[in-house]
């Protein structure tokens, strides 16, 4: 108990620097989440299995069909593994933002806003889900295994792409999480509405884009950018042409897509904060 206070002083006087304050929030979370040890370990172990289930679904589908919309098992597995890794990374880092609706409803948001730290940063740090760390690590391993299994013709460009693709996918999903949660400032019961875009985007991005009807392609693949989470990098990594006719260089615009998504999400979040009126409870 004495320890954090001493660190405060080292960090410079009465007001801790934001970095130190966030570190305290995260450490306090780590302690509290470890309290119920049996439940925590079970939860951590099982949530690691949960994303294997997503990939197992792809395997089950390929038990009854040799190809899916002209794509082979390797190609679909690579799409799904990329998307799943990116999604779980985003869920680990910002998935907690889903709790915003509860904060708004119960009035806890008031407490968040009066503190001298960024509201977004606080919301992300106050319930960092340590049980999800194992899942993200495991998805990284699965991604590497699938890359090996896919037996790609490696070039330096593809190696670079293989590294930046999941990071860009994570950034894209993170932006969608934040934008989806911001809707709660206007619409408190919006939880499931946001799910259509977060979990819905994940489901969408697991399969090659040409499978979907054109209205879904328009909104989810290119309107919201989910084609860039799995499909476009898969095309570039496997060196195959797109049946929809998009050019090969499009895979490299992923970081730009993620940056645009972030800018939009942060703008929505800021507008939401300004729009926020306490429930008074």
């Amino acid at each position, binding site marked *: 108990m004495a320890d954090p206070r001493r660190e405060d002083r080292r960090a410079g006087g009465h007001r801790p620097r934001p970095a130190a304050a966030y570190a305290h929030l995260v450490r306090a979370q780590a302690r509290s989440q470890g309290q119920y040890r049996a439940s925590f370990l079970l939860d951590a172990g099982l949530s690691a299995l949960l994303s294997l289930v997503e990939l197992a679904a792809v395997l089950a589908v390929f038990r009854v069909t040799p190809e*899916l919309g002209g794509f082979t098992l390797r190609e679909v597995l690579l799409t799904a593994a990329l998307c799943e890794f990116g999604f779980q990374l985003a869920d680990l880092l910002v998935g907690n933002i889903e709790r915003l609706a509860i904060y708004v409803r119960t009035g806890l948001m008031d407490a968040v806003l009066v503190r001298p730290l960024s509201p977004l940063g606080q919301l992300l740090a106050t319930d960092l889900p340590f049980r999800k760390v194992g899942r993200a690590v495991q998805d990284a391993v699965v991604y590497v295994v699938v890359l090996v299994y896919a037996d790609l013709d490696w070039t330096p460009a593809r190696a670079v792409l293989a590294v930046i693709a999941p990071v860009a996918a994570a950034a894209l999903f993170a932006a969608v999480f934040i934008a989806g949660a911001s809707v709660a400032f206007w619409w408190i*019961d919006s939880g499931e509405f946001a799910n259509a875009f977060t979990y819905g985007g994940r*489901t969408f991005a697991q399969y090659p884009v040409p*499978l*979907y009807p054109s209205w879904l392609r328009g909104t989810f693949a290119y309107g919201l950018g989910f084609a860039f989470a799995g499909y476009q990098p898969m095309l570039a990594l496997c060196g195959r042409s797109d049946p929809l006719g998009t050019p090969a260089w499009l895979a490299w615009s992923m970081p730009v897509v993620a940056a645009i998504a972030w800018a939009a999400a942060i703008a929505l979040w800021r507008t939401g904060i300004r729009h926020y009126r306490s429930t008074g409870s």
Partner: protein
Amino acid sequence: MPSAAACPKPASDPDAAPDPPPPPIPLSAAVRRFAALAAAGFRRHSTYRQATVAGVFTNVVFGAMLAAVMSAVVAGGGGRPGGYTGAQLVTYVWVGQGLLSVSHMWTWKELADRITSGDVAADLLRPVDPLTSYAAAELGRAAHAVLGRFIAPVGVGFAFYTMYVPHEAATYPLFAVSVVLAVAVSFAGRYLVNLTAFWLLDARGPLAAWGLFAASLSGVHFPLRFLPEWAQWLIWLGTPFPCVFQIPLDIAVERTATGVAAATVALQLCWGTALMALCAAVQRRALRRLVVQGG
């Protein structure tokens, strides 16, 4: 001590109202009380109108995605993957999106939260056994979900897709019974998992376990008939999860003959009764060692 005063009454099976009730309460009063609790559960959920709309929207988006994937499976697999025709698979997806919120497999941790906070003591002081009152509220919730969340995705399916319409008259009542039993099995399973909070205080782990198995073994991601036969036998007979999702859907699309469909409903009944009995037994054990935390 509140724990000593709150000795549980013997649990009565909420799904079989005609069962002999405990002697002090006349049958009609018990039924009326159960109906009142169910109506309260219905009303509670009907107040969240925005949430219902948001939920339907999500179900429709997922339905469209899954239907597209399943259509590609039919096109690539050359005919009948898992023994389903294209129309049957599309119907499986859309009726499934409706059923998802009726059987409500995930995210119920109300009881566990009340156990952790100690609020469960208040439930125990009420004249109705908590298992019975939560089951009644759950039936009310499911009834609301049928009206608010089941009809819309199925309607979208009929409006924009080629759906399979059941040929046998017997399918309709069988499906209705199967959905009620799916709700009962799902509720009993979740209640049991919530009860572990009496021992663990935090039921997140067991809840995650239930969520994992419900997601993978119930037929939500893909029909279990896509799996190898040995895995199907293991899942169908060894776990309650197909009872919650796949059995009603297979009945709706007439995947098997009516006789087999009736047998799967009997399987649901067995799982429902066994899990309810287990809930009552575990709850009795839990209450014997219950310590209500003060403050």
